[in-house]
């Protein structure tokens, strides 16, 4: 039929035209025109207030499946294991800098695989708000990127090759997550940071990376990066830091302990499970916070050279509890000294005492250091390991 034929012609025309629209040609991103940014570093010059952004971009052709160890490769050029390239730009605000990428790069930056944002020490002391606003508003950014503070400059940290991982920023991200899993230092994503800033009483935190020099093969000095502390912010400025014990104490109190170890003078124990709870009590004007910690552990190492008895077990449990308590207490005292509510005590009070919170919130800076903190720790030692008698006895 004539109508049937015409119909077929129309369908044929549509089928020919459709792929033009369906391939999204306006927004096409060709892989070989992209430079995948794996890490972004942010430094502010204290004198001029200029912002320097360091991009760590991946060079795809250098990613090989067999990892060859050849010392530490740093900047671009002349090194067999350089899988990354660093670029820097300076300007007066984040987007002022980002827009200059075209001046030295041959590819469009692609931020969807960024693993870490590193902030230089100068930058965090001045305040990182413009960056935070960009992060929240810009549709390109992802909420899961990890925040890191650098002891010196961000560009230094991003340049140091860490042997095991192919791409440095991926290695850094894995390192942060590992240290959080082993209950040493918190892993803070952008979303976590944003939530803490939005709650006007809680203090944002971020782990700090520093550079250590070690002796490498052939007596050469290699540089490695390590997490050395937790930065404490007030708003968008860094005001202090928590050391290793204090960071662990923070993780105990905020229920972020997963695996890890408790080291006491006579033994080392492996943490199986731990729960931390913050219970606020409001008595008139005085706030009392009870931090309840419940922990289960296994015995790994015992230095006592005695056979295990249930008395010794109970001793160990008590010592464990004391150690955990002192870690948490250290964190609490440091946070009082800095007057920064890193634990979220304010939000805990808010949840329980809705009406009173309206009056307490504006005075939180005065109230916080006067809070009474009581720490209650319960520990259980589950397993004593493979042997039940000592190898050598006194």
């Amino acid at each position: 039929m004539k109508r049937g034929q015409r119909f077929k012609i129309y369908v044929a025309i549509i089928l020919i035209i459709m792929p033009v629209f369906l391939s999204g040609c306006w927004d096409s991103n060709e892989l070989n025109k992209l430079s995948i940014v794996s890490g972004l570093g942010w430094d502010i010059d204290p004198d001029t207030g200029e912002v320097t952004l360091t991009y760590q971009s991946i060079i795809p052709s250098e990613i090989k499946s067999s990892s060859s160890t050849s010392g530490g490769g740093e900047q671009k050029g002349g090194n067999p294991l350089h899988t990354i390239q660093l670029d820097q730009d300076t300007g007066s605000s984040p987007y002022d800098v980002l827009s200059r990428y075209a001046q030295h790069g041959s590819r469009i930056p692609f931020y969807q695989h960024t693993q870490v944002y590193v902030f230089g020490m100068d930058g965090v002391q001045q305040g990182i708000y413009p960056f935070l606003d960009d992060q929240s508003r810009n549709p390109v950014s992802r909420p899961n990127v990890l925040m890191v503070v650098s002891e010196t400059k961000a560009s230094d940290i991003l340049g140091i090759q860490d042997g095991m991982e192919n791409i440095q920023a991926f290695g850094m991200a894995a390192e942060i997550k590992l240290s959080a899993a082993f209950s040493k230092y918190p892993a803070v994503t952008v979303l976590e940071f944003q939530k803490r800033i939005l709650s006007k009483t809680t203090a944002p935190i971020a782990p700090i990376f520093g550079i250590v020099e070690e002796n490498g093969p052939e007596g050469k000095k290699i540089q490695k990066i390590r997490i050395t502390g937790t930065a404490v912010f007030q708003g968008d400025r860094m005001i202090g830091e928590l050391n290793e014990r204090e960071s662990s104490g923070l993780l105990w109190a905020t229920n972020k302990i997963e695996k890890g170890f408790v080291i006491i003078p006579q033994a080392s124990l492996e943490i199986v499970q731990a729960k931390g709870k913050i219970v606020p009590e409001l008595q008139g004007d005085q706030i009392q916070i009870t931090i309840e910690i419940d922990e289960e552990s296994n015995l790994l190492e015992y230095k006592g050279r005695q056979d295990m008895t249930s008395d010794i077990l109970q001793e160990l449990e008590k010592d464990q509890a004391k150690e955990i308590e002192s870690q948490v207490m250290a964190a609490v005292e440091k946070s009082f000294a800095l007057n920064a509510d890193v634990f979220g005590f304010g939000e805990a009070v808010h949840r329980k005492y809705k009406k009173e919170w309206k009056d307490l919130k504006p005075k939180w800076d005065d109230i916080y250091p006067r809070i009474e903190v009581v720490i209650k720790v319960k520990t259980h030692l589950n397993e004593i390991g493979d042997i039940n008698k000592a190898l050598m006895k006194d």
Partner: protein
Amino acid sequence: MSLEKGKISNFQLSVLIVGFTLGSSVIISPGQGAGHDAWIAVAVGLIEGLFIAWIFTAVVKQFKDKTIIEINSLVYGKFLGKCISVLFIWYLFHLGALVLNSYIRFFKLEIYPATPKTVGLLLLMLVCASTVGRGIEVLARCSIILVPLTTLVAISDTFLLIPHIDLNNLMPILDVPIGKLLLASHGAASFPFAETVAFLMVLAFVDKPEKGPSAVSRGLLMAGFILIMVVARNAAVLGQMAAITNYSTYLAAQVIDIGDILTRVESLVAINLIAMGFIKISVLFYGTVLGLAQVFNFRSYRPIILPVGILMVILALTNTENTFDMIDFANKGYPIYAISFQIGIPLITLVIAKLRKLPQTGGDKV
């Protein structure tokens, strides 16, 4: 009633209503003014929406098998009835343009920054036009496929986010002052629940008209539960960020990360928007062209589909001067503007119909 020969079952009607209500709410969460109590606002809005649905389904129960256009002509007389019908059609048309606007805003911001808005809108409109041209049955059948998929994505997203849910973010409950909560719930009622008043054009084609109203309630309840779950989950995951983000479902989906393998699931949320936006726009489009055809006594509504579609795109493009005006309108003007169509027209029509004891056999025209 030769304009539309199709019939849809009650189940299809319910599913169509779920698809319509989820519409653009899969991206723009309702009840944002209430902070972390948004889910309570949505629940209260659901109740208000059910109440409004009861009113307008009562109108259809009075006059079986007639769309609101025909009912208006019977109740108000031919001339006044057609004027009121034109107003109602304008509401459907305007709402269609608003949905197109939010749809293309999201896509242009997050996914296709370089594509011109016109192209995206025209493509979507052409798909809706082709569906509308084939009648309400085809639309209902499309929704039977699309809506369960969307529901599946929404529920599985919630499961995937369980590691990141912190119920403390939802507390304290009822923290927001009651005034703000009621405002937010009225906002949630007018967008999206009471917008189902558009189904006054569709309810006439249900094969068992007595069961029509209960199908509408079922659809609203189902969509309401899904929305409450989504809004509560967004607040639990994002904490206070949910109150300041424009697209909280999308942001929450970006957080999903299972073993570094299952990531970037947010594209499924965008696909949800495509599917549900398509259904909502098609229903509104259908209502507009069918309504116009009935007002002018056409023999078929097919010829005017394309021009109306193009005009809808034009309105979507020139609706407001900038995004901020759009948000302002959605928060302040729209809840009041919509009341007149969602509650006003059905209620007044119902009251007058009851007073005049319509319908009578033999027809009684002024």
